[in-house]
């Protein structure tokens, strides 16, 4: 298809490079530098989608970030982007896009029936229609809404593209490269400030690209190119295009998304698709410009109705005509610039101006060009369904209430201009309370909240001369504050056409007997009648009206609709706009892809994986791993066809009968050093620590101030002022912070230092009746007899030349030792243990067997110390000193904690000795009792006892100490199980603790 609407020799696209692309499966051509929108319009295509609620045909309305209609789904290099704006996405060879929100096709859309049922879709229709019955929600209402509301279809595949994050600091961040952005950047950079200038579009210059002005004897485009070239050559300046500053956060932190590869067929090697910049700026100049406001009239959403500034930009930047019979409908001088541009390109426009008798340079120029102008004229309604074919126009009375002489004239597009709305989003996000400027009928930023200033048309300054002068001044002032330099550059002379006042009129009344839809929010299909209805129904606050009607709640955040909505509410309510106030602006200013927000933190990069130095050995020996916090630990070592149950049973049994070895590197380790270390531990732990001799370990429990158990572990006195503390794997980081808190803030007088040594040591627990024999072979020169190295003893030794620390501690309840070597020697240690242990039938055991062993013994772990238990509950009350004070002690006297029938740790055995009890089951007296069945407690951990070959569980139940011997029931509604059980002691195996001391 030929580009019938492309002008010759006009615009900035590269005519040398023709690019083919597909839209809804059909092939089209454009040029390098085109957006999807400009290329489609060049081909005469205006129908690109269907609206959200009524499925009315949608075309193009704008030319940039404000676009409410042309949201398409892009497939690029096997990845999918569900919601891209056709007005921003540049075309590349092979690009494929399709319309969204229409089925089966954009030309024949079944949902359009909603348009004929529109009396059933009034304001708040979601709230009114989809209320009852509740059971209808997820079966009927939700799928319907989802199907109807579907924008693009998100891909369910892993996104293989790369996204990066970058942290940057600068003196001055400038958000937009229009005249004010360029001028202030230039002034500040010349004065030595470190400047970042960010431009959302591919081309720099903003309004200078399309306005007919002269700066320092150059055209706007020439001046832009000169300034940008000079800025780029300066080492203190970063200039970025395709970069949108979308969020202004606390303490002058701004976030910008840079689209690095979106305009290319494929992301280049070593480059990301997008980069998210976190910029901490000393000062910010907001130069984000302004967005043209629509005028509101009947069927003003018909494809072919668009902003007049957009029509001008399509001509001047892309060399594309949006129509060949244009109607310009304006309440200010901006529409004339568009009309003049049409005329210069050989097209005859008609201007309808709502004003009765305005005069200015531009109007005179239009008259001199013989452009047809009708004053006091309005568009009543656009005609045509999929594209504007004609318009009903009328003369309007001076009070703007009556329409006369309604006639129909032919046209193929209607370019509207309802004056300009400053983009105050960033200023507002920074906390700046805006103020209403009556002269321009719009909000502008008020006093600076953070270190931000707004310049140019974003601040409501609409003449170029004033903009340039103000921006040069601000650029200098801000940089002077930071650099304290005084290099002031001279302000160039500006020549522009003077314009006159705009008309405050913006909404055309309905002619008698007509009920045209007049849209305010084009993306969410909110019409004038919806707002009127919401107000009749009693909604007053603008925030409520917004949520009830969904005005301004679509992905364009109401860039084109907000102010007209406010105007309407204030007109009906007989208030002025500032009394109505505006809704809150929140980041992001424009949609940001989730990939950019996530950055590189995907998959394994989202959280680090920690592996012990013995990891590769475990891998080679068929270990099946489990996540333990950030660590990967062997859960069991698979032999043959074994599953978890068989393997862990075999491993645990081998510990009880021979000897096993378990990788315990992951345990938290903290060095506690200093002359007051003993006193400190005495305050941290519940038991006594002052008399622990050098070379001995002790088991300790620490509480939070509220009396709840925080963690447990053994701590060993290595030398006079040096202790080696161990914590559980999960609590290691919290315990360190806890210790630092007390040392730095509560007891600074204690001379103690703590530091994490978790990663410095590799650990192996050797457990089982054969462990001493194994130790004798590993350390032939060491006395490892029960006298030489007794239970809770500590020795240093040599393991084939490697310095080793041996702690005789046991979690399994067997005779056991924990051996630590420096991490680098971990693999060597493990190999030696396995090698030498061969003759004693050594087997490695994983966390599952470890659990079995500790559960049988009634040793508590994380499932019992779950943040709800005090020492008594976990049967640790024997470790609570009555004599000394410690962290959390005072809480243990609270009445709830001293009541005699508190929950307490017990053992649970199924009566049939075969049915395993699911963890989390309730213990109840009568399983048939009326629901909710009063529960006595819950099962915290379950295993298959290898000692007795039957299931065994730990439970924490009410009045546990008096329940031993009782026959109760374990109930798991989740697993639909009721199991008769007997309550026994939690010390199921070796209750006297003989083995650990043997």
């Amino acid at each position, binding site marked *: 298809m030929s580009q019938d609407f492309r002008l010759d020799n006009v615009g900035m696209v590269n005519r040398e490079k023709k690019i083919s692309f597909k839209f809804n499966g059909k092939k089209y051509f454009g040029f390098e530098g085109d957006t999807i929108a400009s290329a489609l319009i060049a081909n005469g295509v205006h129908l690109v989608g269907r609206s959200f609620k009524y499925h009315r045909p949608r075309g193009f309305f704008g030319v940039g970030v404000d676009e409410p209609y042309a949201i398409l789904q892009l497939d690029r290099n096997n990845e999918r982007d569900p919601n891209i704006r056709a007005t921003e996405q540049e075309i590349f060879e092979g690009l494929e896009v399709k319309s969204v929100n229409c089925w089966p096709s954009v030309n024949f859309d079944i949902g359009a029936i909603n348009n004929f049922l529109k009396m059933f879709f009034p304001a708040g229709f979601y709230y009114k229609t989809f209320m009852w019955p509740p059971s209808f929600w997820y079966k009927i209402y939700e799928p319907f809404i989802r199907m109807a509301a579907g924008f693009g279809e998100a891909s369910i595949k892993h996104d293989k593209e790369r996204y990066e994050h970058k942290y940057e600091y600068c003196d001055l961040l400038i958000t937009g490269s229009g005249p004010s952005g360029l001028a202030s950047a230039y002034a500040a950079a010349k004065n030595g400030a470190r400047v970042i200038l960010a431009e959302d579009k591919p081309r720099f210059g903003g309004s200078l690209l399309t306005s007919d002005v002269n700066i320092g004897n150059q055209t706007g485009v020439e001046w832009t190119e000169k300034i940008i070239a000079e800025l780029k050559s300066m080492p203190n300046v970063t200039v970025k295009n395709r970069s949108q500053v979308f969020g202004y956060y*606390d303490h002058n932190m701004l976030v910008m998304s840079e689209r690095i590869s979106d305009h290319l067929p494929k992301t280049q090697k070593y480059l990301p698709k997008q980069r998210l910049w976190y910029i901490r700026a000393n000062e910010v100049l907001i130069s984000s410009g302004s967005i043209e406001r629509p005028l509101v009239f009947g069927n003003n959403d018909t494809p072919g109705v668009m902003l007049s500034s957009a029509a001008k930009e399509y001509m001047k930047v892309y060399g594309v005509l949006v129509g060949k019979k244009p109607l310009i409908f304006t309440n200010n001088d901006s529409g004339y610039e568009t009309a003049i541009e049409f005329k210069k390109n050989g097209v005859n426009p008609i201007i309808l101006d709502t004003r009765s008798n305005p005069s200015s340079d531009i109007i005179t120029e239009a008259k001199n060009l013989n452009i047809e102008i009708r004053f006091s004229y309005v568009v009543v309604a656009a005609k045509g369904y999929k594209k504007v074919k004609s318009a009903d126009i009328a003369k309007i009375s001076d009070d703007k209430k009556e329409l006369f002489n309604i006639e129909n004239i032919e046209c193929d597009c209607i370019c509207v201009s309802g004056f300009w709305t400053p983009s105050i989003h960033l200023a507002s996000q920074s906390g700046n309370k805006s103020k209403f400027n009556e002269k321009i009928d719009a909000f502008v930023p008020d006093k600076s909240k953070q270190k931000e200033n707004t310049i140019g048309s974003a601040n409501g300054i609409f003449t170029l001369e004033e903009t340039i002068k103000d921006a040069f001044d601000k650029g200098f002032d801000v940089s002077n504050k930071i650099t304290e330099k005084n290099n002031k550059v001279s302000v160039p002379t500006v020549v522009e056409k003077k314009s006159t006042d705009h008309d405050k009129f913006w909404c055309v009344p309905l002619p008698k007997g007509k009920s045209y839809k007049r849209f305010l929010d084009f993306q969410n299909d909110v019409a004038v009648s919806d707002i009127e209805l919401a107000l009749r129904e009693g909604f007053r606050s603008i925030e409520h009206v917004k949520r009830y009607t969904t005005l301004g709640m679509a992905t364009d955040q109401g860039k084109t609709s907000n102010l007209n909505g406010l105007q309407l509410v204030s007109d009906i309510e007989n208030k002025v706009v500032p009394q109505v106030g505006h809704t809150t602006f929140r980041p992001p200013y424009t949609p940001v892809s989730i990939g950019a927000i996530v950055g590189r933190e995907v998959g394994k990069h989202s959280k680090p994986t920690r592996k012990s130095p013995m990891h590769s050995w475990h891998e080679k020996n068929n270990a099946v791993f489990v996540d333990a916090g950030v660590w990967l630990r062997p859960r069991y070592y698979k032999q043959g066809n074994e599953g978890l149950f068989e393997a862990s049973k075999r491993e645990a049994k081998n510990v009880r009968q021979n000897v096993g070895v378990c990788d315990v590197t992951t345990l938290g380790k903290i060095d506690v050093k200093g002359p007051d270390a003993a006193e400190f531990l005495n305050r941290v732990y519940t038991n006594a620590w002052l008399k622990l001799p050098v070379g001995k370990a002790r088991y300790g429990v620490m509480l939070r101030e509220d009396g709840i158990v925080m963690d447990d572990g053994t701590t060993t006195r290595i030398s006079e002022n040096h202790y080696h503390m161990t914590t559980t794997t999960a609590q290691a980081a919290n315990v360190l912070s806890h210790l630092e808190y007390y040392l730095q803030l509560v007891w*600074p007088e204690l001379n103690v230092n703590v530091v994490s040594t978790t990663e410095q040591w590799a650990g192996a627990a050797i457990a089982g009746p054969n462990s001493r024999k194994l130790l004798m072979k590993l350390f032939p020169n060491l006395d490892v007899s029960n006298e030489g190295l007794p239970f809770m003893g500590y020795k240093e030794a040599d393991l084939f030349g490697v310095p080793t620390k041996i702690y005789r501690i046991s979690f399994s309840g067997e005779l056991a030792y924990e051996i630590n070597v420096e991490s680098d020697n971990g693999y060597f240690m493990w190999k030696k243990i396995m090698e030498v242990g061969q003759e004693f039938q050594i087997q490695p055991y994983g966390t599952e067997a470890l659990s079995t062993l500790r559960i049988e013994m009634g040793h508590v772990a994380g499932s019992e110390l779950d943040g709800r238990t005090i020492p008594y509950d976990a049967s640790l009350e024997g470790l609570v000193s009555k004599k000394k004070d410690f962290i959390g002690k005072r809480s243990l006297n609270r009445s709830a904690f001293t009541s005699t029938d508190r929950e307490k740790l017990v053992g649970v055995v199924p009566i049939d000795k075969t049915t395993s009890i699911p963890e989390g089951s309730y213990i109840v007296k009568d399983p048939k009792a009326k629901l909710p069945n009063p529960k006595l407690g819950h099962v915290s951990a379950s295993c298959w006892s290898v000692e007795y070959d039957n299931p065994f569980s730990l439970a924490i139940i009410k009045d546990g100490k008096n329940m031993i011997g009782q026959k109760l029931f374990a109930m798991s509604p989740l697993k639909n199980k009721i199991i008769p059980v007997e309550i026994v002691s939690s010390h199921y195996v070796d209750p006297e603790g003989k083995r650990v001391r043997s």
Partner: protein
Amino acid sequence: MLYINCPHCGLRSQNEFAYGGDATVKRPELNKEISDQEWDNFVYLRKSPRGKHLELWHHISGCRQWIKVERDTSTHEIFKTYKANEAIE
């Protein structure tokens, strides 16, 4: 994201810190007889003022020092930061 001036390290981003709650709470001395009420006040009761508030932050990904930060809870403005044992003005 807040920009916190660690008295040991200088200006650092909030994501290097962990929040540590009200810095004006004082732990009762060890071995001192106190009422249930006093102890409950220490363990559980916290003011949640709108406006100036002295709070603890822990520079966990930096120097690992606990610091005190005087911050406005509604505007996030930070007025001053102190070392753990510095006198509060």
